[in-house]
């Protein structure tokens, strides 16, 4: 190592000191401002807006803002969204959570996916903050004040397995990415397949950065499965499929939601999959008119979560977490982005699931 001079040390320390003072002043000012607005209900959103999953975070934010655009037209309170980027890191999640709850004084939190939802749930229970996770990990809903909303694994897999049975498929192979979603889907699929006597001949589990599947594909195909269930996200989804086809295997494929995400839909021509129910045509049209983009299932989940919360909060004069929880029990169903949605007491709100098929390189509804 090279020893060098002490140049600029004091200047940098002065600048850092001034920045910390600036931050402190802004923080105090914001605190005062947030305490002065009694008719405003703030809802916090914790999601990644930068990094690998930024597109999904953005979809969640768009859906939330779209919900507020509709709700604020004739609601008792004016609802505001404060969205903070957690970069999908645990460290940032906890910091952002504390900012939203203790600084911005939000009345409820929406979080995205299990990494965020599982980190927020124990904190929300400790601080008594109503929390909606757009995720399918039921562990989140086990804690007080936490709810989950998404298309649930059991809904997907029971639908999928029923079609396999109907089509005479008795032996399947499963390819999963080693993350929470992949494992939740696999657990549910194993349970449903066992019920219907469908054999899972092989399970190929891989880490998210794996790109060469040729050796495991050959090994997997030795068991002669009639269908492969792909529980993987792009780009691994397309890479796996291309390698499978290059090796000469013409086996039918299916997935849960992910065929809808890929830009290379022609790889899955004729294959069916299960997906969360699409937003209604009116919603899609209205959303496109306002934001000039597609209204996705993720946006719809956020829309529905905010709508449910607003229905519960609008009934209250004194907004506390306990009162919101009590009021949520009285909201039995809503007319949400995907149509009528039933709200059970279990705190697990399952979005409806449907069949889709890839036809002429496009997704379309499969009537079953």
């Amino acid at each position, binding site marked *: 190592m090279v020893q*060098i001079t002490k140049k600029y040390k004091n200047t*940098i320390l002065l600048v850092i000191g001034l920045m910390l003072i600036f*931050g402190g002043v802004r923080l105090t000012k914001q605190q005062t401002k947030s305490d002065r607005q009694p008719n405003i209900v703030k809802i916090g959103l914790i999601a990644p*807006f930068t990094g690998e999953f930024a597109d999904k975070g953005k979809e969640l934010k768009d859906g939330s803002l779209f919900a507020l655009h509709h709700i604020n037209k004739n609601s008792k309170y004016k609802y505001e969204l404060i969205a903070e980027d957690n970069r999908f890191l*645990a460290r940032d999640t*906890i910091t952002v959570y504390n900012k939203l709850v203790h600084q911005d004084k939000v009345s409820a939190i929406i979080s995205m996916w299990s990494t965020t939802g599982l980190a927020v749930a124990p904190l929300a229970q400790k601080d008594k903050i109503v929390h909606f996770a757009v995720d399918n*990990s039921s562990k989140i809903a086990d804690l007080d004040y936490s709810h989950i909303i998404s298309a649930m694994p059991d809904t997907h897999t029971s639908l999928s397995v029923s079609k396999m049975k109907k089509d005479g498929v008795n032996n399947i192979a499963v390819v999963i990415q080693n993350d929470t979603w992949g494992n939740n889907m696999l657990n549910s699929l194993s349970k449903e397949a066992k019920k219907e006597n469908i054999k899972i001949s092989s399970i190929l589990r891989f880490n998210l950065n794996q790109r060469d599947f040729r050796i495991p594909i050959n090994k997997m195909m030795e068991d002669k499965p009639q269908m492969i269930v792909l529980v993987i996200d792009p780009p691994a989804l397309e890479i796996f499929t291309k390698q499978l086809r290059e090796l000469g295997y013409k086996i039918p494929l299916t997935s849960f939601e992910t065929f809808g995400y890929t830009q290379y839909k022609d790889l899955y021509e004729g294959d069916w999959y299960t997906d969360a129910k699409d937003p209604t045509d009116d919603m899609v049209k209205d959303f496109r008119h306002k934001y000039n983009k597609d209204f996705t299932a993720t946006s719809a989940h956020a829309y529905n979560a905010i709508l449910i919360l607003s229905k519960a909060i609008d009934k209250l004069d004194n907004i506390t977490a306990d009162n919101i929880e009590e009021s949520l029990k009285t909201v039995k169903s809503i007319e949400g982005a995907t149509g009528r949605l039933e709200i059970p007491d279990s705190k697990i709100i399952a979005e409806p699931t449907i069949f889709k098929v890839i036809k002429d390189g496009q997704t379309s509804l499969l009537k079953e």
Partner: protein
Amino acid sequence: MEYIINLFILFAIYGILAISLNIVVGYTGLLSLAQAAFYGVGAYATAILMTKFDMNFFFTVIIGMIVCALIGFIIGAILSKFKGDYYAIVSAGLTIIIFNTLLNCEGLTNGPIGIFGIGRPTLFGFSFSSNINFLILCVLTLSAIYYLNKHLVNSSFGRVLKGIREDERLVRVMGHHRKTPKMLSFVFSASLTSVAGSLFASYLMFIDPMTFQLHEAIFIFTIIIVGGLADLKGSMLGAVIMISLPEILRFLGLPQETAAQLQQLIYGLLLVVLMYIRPQGILGKYRM
């Protein structure tokens, strides 16, 4: 106030991580990227022992330190044969191996789902469940680790480490071993890093393997580069800057549509400017 307390807790946890790393990088001159691995092992030791065996937090910290010291001993013995870029690559390999173990060893670590429901520490009936109490615990731990390291770097062993950093051959000529001090500094750093992992797991009450990847090792490395190599106060200052800077940027009042992206851009630019005008870090006297 809770928000500020949370930031101070993170300053303390990352301060411990940075001080531990500075022993290896700043004082011994070894480019280690293994910190995230020991951070993860410490966190998982606490999470597993507290949730599955209902063990007291403080015992889990000790066990975590022992496990990390053992891993550090084995890996350190291998690493002590390397220096420079090779040391960095092999130590980064350890982080990747530990991450993959945490991800795939489902029976023990619960795989990608992580471990949920980790408790806060208690000692003789006194609970650290409130954030202010937890902050006190973190500050006490940081202080203890700071003084322990201060004593170490000023000892004769510390001078040997600095000697290795400056000229390994000279240390050998002076009659000292080269490999043993390198390995011991690595083992010492590993066991202290484990303490930060235990505190983090207990504070967050949930952990999954995603936190303990190579990017976290690079983040800790950046802390000591920004704060200053071979300076313990610099490590703590680096932690304060790297944790608080993105938070200050949240209050700039940037347009909501692009706020997150702009914050990242400004954060990156500030670090580049800082490294340009002060490559040795703010309190550092050396540069790589």
